[in-house]
């Protein structure tokens, strides 16, 4: 049995140097090859992108509150009174909201930011396989996002985030800057994918087989496959679009005999799988949160693992469901519709497994668990409404209405953003060594949940009643829905800001915690909090990530330790994991 000193050294508060304070100065951050620091830089970056694009969302919702051009608050921001055109500004707001949210926030949020911090540690590795490539990915993200912002300042962008031809060839806004930005962001995503795939393949801790990996890693692996196979197609598509705009190559431009629908095929061949780049890592986060905060072995491990892979592969075969009304043949529509329905199966497998994990678990309603429960509810609605859109007959009615907007926001915001916030609250004590105010965290979670539902539930109703998306004005009968939606958007915004404030407050003022405050079994919790530069002072020994009975709470150290390291003078105890 380990002595008190050894146990304290192994599991106690980290007094020694950690990755946050091992070196100082701006350059030690900007040129770092440490995955944890790169992850934190990503975290800052994607948070800025989230707040910027969220600001655009609030602007466009405010415009829609009035439903005509009477809202002029943007005038001082976006132009002189003489040529101010509220509807034009509205077009740019929703386009940049979509483009920045999709390319700069949602896609890198969980994989690049949280994944970078967590993935190597979950594997018991010192770093990702290619640390320099990892840093390059981050700077590509910075440049790509920079291009999107340059587009904002050079005429804006009003094509919608999808850049559909022929309008994207004709509009006089900054399409080339924006597509260049998306192109660069694509490469950032590809390099992250390559890095993670190789790291998972070659750098697992001794003893960790594929089925010993935490489910978050399975989902990141599936995500990496999509990033690798889908993103290059987006890259070449955007290059062709740029060539079309600047040189007139005539492949997408009907004026020169080109086929604009071909662009849609190319675009969705990436962008539908990209939807799974956005949601799969979030599902992986939820698998971790549910099992840890219910202190119960995840139910149906291999079903959850392979449903990630199944979603990744099926995701490549459903792009045509974005184009049911584009004049595709009926046979093609039927095939795409049928495959789209089949994606519901692995998605539902996950949801049922999470619910079964909760059943008879020791559920602790910590902030991360609140987010996880909120995810299951919102993702359930988002997923089920997807079936309405996959049905050919109802899609004719619902296509391009607010029903679609509400559907994908339930998945992207209700799913990914919720899981991203939940994951932040879950791993925050690990990476900063401090616990946040759990009560305020839960309040933030509730505001996000309530505000979100208030924003998007009315959109289902008005979408089903025929309110088209992307319109700057509407018939009077829709006004009450738009007004509820706008109020909800502000509540959601307050919730997000509050959550960020709670987390930031904890970095400096939170209570210090030791290595494993939640009683989690995966390897990253074996290191000190915050981890040292090399992640582990001692090469971690693999054990089952979901065997929570192997961990007991040690009062003296205020952390969970493996049963064999427990203070021999104490009676083993399983206290609820609340802080």
């Amino acid at each position: 049995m380990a002595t008190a000193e050894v146990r304290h050294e192994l599991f106690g508060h980290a007094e020694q140097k950690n990755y946050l304070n091992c070196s100082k100065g701006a350059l030690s951050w900007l040129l770092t090859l440490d995955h944890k620091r790169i992850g934190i830089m990503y975290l800052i970056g994607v948070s800025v992108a989230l707040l910027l694009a969220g600001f655009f969302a609030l602007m466009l919702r405010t415009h829609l509150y009035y439903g005509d051009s009477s809202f002029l608050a943007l005038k001082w921001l976006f132009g002189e009174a003489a040529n101010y055109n509220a509807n034009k500004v509205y077009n740019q707001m929703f386009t940049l909201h979509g483009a920045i949210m999709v390319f700069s926030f949602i896609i890198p949020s969980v994989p690049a930011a949280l994944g970078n911090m967590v993935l190597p540690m979950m594997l018991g590795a010192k770093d990702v396989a290619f640390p320099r490539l990892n840093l390059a990915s981050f700077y590509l993200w910075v440049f790509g996002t920079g291009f999107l912002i340059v587009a904002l300042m050079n005429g804006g962008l009003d094509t919608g985030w999808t850049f559909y031809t022929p309008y994207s060839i004709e509009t006089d806004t900054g399409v080339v800057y924006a597509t260049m930005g998306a192109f660069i962001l694509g490469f950032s995503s590809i390099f992250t994918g390559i890095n993670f795939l190789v790291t998972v393949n070659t750098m697992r801790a001794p003893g960790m087989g594929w089925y010993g990996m935490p489910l978050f890693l399975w989902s990141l692996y599936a995500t990496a496959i999509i990033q690798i196979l889908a993103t290059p197609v987006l890259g070449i598509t955007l290059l062709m679009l740029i060539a079309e705009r600047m040189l007139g190559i005539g492949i997408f431009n009907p004026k020169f005999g080109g086929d604009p629908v071909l662009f849609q095929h190319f675009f969705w061949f990436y962008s539908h799988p990209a939807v799974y780049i956005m949601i799969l890592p979030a599902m992986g986060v939820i698998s971790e949160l549910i099992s840890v905060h219910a202190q119960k072995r995840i139910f149906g491990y291999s079903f959850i693992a392979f449903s990630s892979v199944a979603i990744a592969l099926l995701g490549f075969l459903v792009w045509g469901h974005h184009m049911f009304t584009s004049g595709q043949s009926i046979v093609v529509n039927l095939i795409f519709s049928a495959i789209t329905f089949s994606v519901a199966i692995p998605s539902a497998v996950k949801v049922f497994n999470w619910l079964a994990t909760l059943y008879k678990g020791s559920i602790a309603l910590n902030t991360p668990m609140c987010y996880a429960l909120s995810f299951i509810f919102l993702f359930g609605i988002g997923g089920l409404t997807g079936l309405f859109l996959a049905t050919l007959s109802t899609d004719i009615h619902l296509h391009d209405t607010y029903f679609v907007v509400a559907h994908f926001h339930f998945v992207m915001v209700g799913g990914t953003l919720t899981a991203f916030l939940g994951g932040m609250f879950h791993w925050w004590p690990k990476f900063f060594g401090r616990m946040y105010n759990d009560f305020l965290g839960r309040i933030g979670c509730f505001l996000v949940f309530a505000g979100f539902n208030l924003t998007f539930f009315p959109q289902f109703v008005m979408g089903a009643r025929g309110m088209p998306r992307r319109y700057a004005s509407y018939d009077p009968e829709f006004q009450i829905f738009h007004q509820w939606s706008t109020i909800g958007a502000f509540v959601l915004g307050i919730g997000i800001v509050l959550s960020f404030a709670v987390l930031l407050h904890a970095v400096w003022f939170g209570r210090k915690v030791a290595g494993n405050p939640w009683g989690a079994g995966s390897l990253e919790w074996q290191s000190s909090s915050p981890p040292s530069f090399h992640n582990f002072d001692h090469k971690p020994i693999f054990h089952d990530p979901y065997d929570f009975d192997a961990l007991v709470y040690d009062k003296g150290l205020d952390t969970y330790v493996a049963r064999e390291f427990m203070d021999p003078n104490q009676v083993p105890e399983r206290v609820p994991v609340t802080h």
Partner: protein
Amino acid sequence: MAVADTHHHDHHDHGEFIAHHFDNAEQQFDSGKLGIWVFLVTEVLFFSGLFVAYILWRYHHPEIFQQAHVFLDKVLGGINTVVLLFSSLTMALAVRCSQMSNNRGTAFYTLITMVCAAIFLGVKAIEYSHKWDQGILVRSMWAYTLDHQEAKLGIAQQLGVSDWLIWLSIVPAILLGVFIVASVTATLMAKPIWSKFYAGLAITVGGYFLGALGGQIYMKNYEAREAAGTAQVSPLVLHADDKAAASAQQHDHTGEHAGEHGHAGEHHDSHHPDPKSLDRDVGVFFSIYYCMTGLHAFHILGGIAFLSWIYFRSLKGHWRSDYFGPVEYVGLYWHLVDLIWIYLFPMLYLID
């Protein structure tokens, strides 16, 4: 117990090339190899969009491909194919040398590979500049005429080449000068490795001019042999009688290739189809051609950059039989670039 030795001591004496986060050389090599293979997958997919565009246009508009391919010179394309195949051989030999700890051999074969890459670009510059002279451009800029654009630059007139070739060659010419000066400077400063490195780069850029010169001589020869009536006309060379011949034979070569009309001498001028006889969208073929070959040329340029890094490290003597990963990875990339050309050549040049 949970405390294992984290500091796995490497017993090889070149441990400086094993990054701190890998346990051993084998893990590092396996990671790099998997990484580069996955990267190559993304490269193939990157080109796939253009291949799909090619397939769709060829399927829906075969007549454009029939009309357009006569503008491409099979001989120059063939020379480039041979050059790239040969460079793949030298690349493979470079990898072999590095595996046997033979740094001199690696440097030598890497340099040959770089020169081949540059020759390829030189020949490509000849092809591009002749097409641009004739207004053979992408769809929206399509301005094909039987007239060659007159050279306006003095130096172009003196050398008897196209203006475009001069513009394309400016950067290589500057680089050539810079590398020669750098090499001489490094020699004077007694830095032999840098001297050899810059000399190698200068030789590489020289490869570009060698390719361009060869292409140009091929053109001139063609004119000479053609004047003697012994050669089939290269589509890239124009002749005084073309315009007359074209208008005279306008009726009989609409959208068709010379080979289908009997012997070559009689129909050589159908290599220069009358602009009026061409399909409106024939420029789309060249849109696809420029996108594909242009993207490929960028990959060649990238390849030269990677190869020069390998060349430099070879001069430094970094490769050993248990550390040669980077040579192998760049080699795999180079073979892929070669392979893509192996597809592009028949797809674009050998349509007939």
